[in-house]
């Protein structure tokens, strides 16, 4: 089966720590679980486009600044 999941590097942890927010606070603001914030920060999970936009808005940034498609590496399906 062809792999269709791609993991992109992101700056979520960097932006969160700069603002002094906890993972639980970010999770509450984004209406996702703390475990999902941890997975996004560690690069194990790439968020959907709507969630990526919510993340960018939360940190007053843009999707292309928060997520780096040039650093993408193929994940496993």
């Amino acid at each position, binding site marked *: 089966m062809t792999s269709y999941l791609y993991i992109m590097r992101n700056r979520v942890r960097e932006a969160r720590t700069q603002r002094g927010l906890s993972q639980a606070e970010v999770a509450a603001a984004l*209406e*996702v*679980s*703390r*475990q*999902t914030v941890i997975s996004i920060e560690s690069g194990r*999970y790439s*968020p*959907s486009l709507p*969630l990526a936009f919510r993340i960018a808005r939360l940190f007053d940034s843009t999707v292309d600044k928060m997520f780096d498609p040039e650093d993408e590496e193929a994940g496993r399906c």
Partner: protein
Amino acid sequence: MLRLTNPRWRAPAVMLAGGTVIDVAVGIGHGWHWGAEIILALLTILAAAGYYLLGGRDTDTGAIYSGHMDERQLLIWTQAMALSGWVVSLALLVAFVIALVLGKPTWPFALVLGIGVVTFFGATAVYRRREAR
């Protein structure tokens, strides 16, 4: 307040209903042996209560069991359901072949396998259309 519309109650409620139906079916089919009926009822209640309690944990598993999932947990649930479907289909196929070799009735396995295949094709058509909208 206790609300049955809360997703956390759905799976335990289905388990309780299913256990009750099986309990009654055993009673009708094999006679009412109250010791066995009570044990079956207690096992059903324990399973439903255990599932409900697991749904209260602040973990991915807890979120999946309680039905309060975010998009990543929904993906995990979908993948787990797909894998379960594959394993059940494989087990049914093996059971079908064994029944065939032993000369036993094969229709129950063929029927369930057939329902699975028809559901897969139907679901593919439905979800493809929904996505196109």
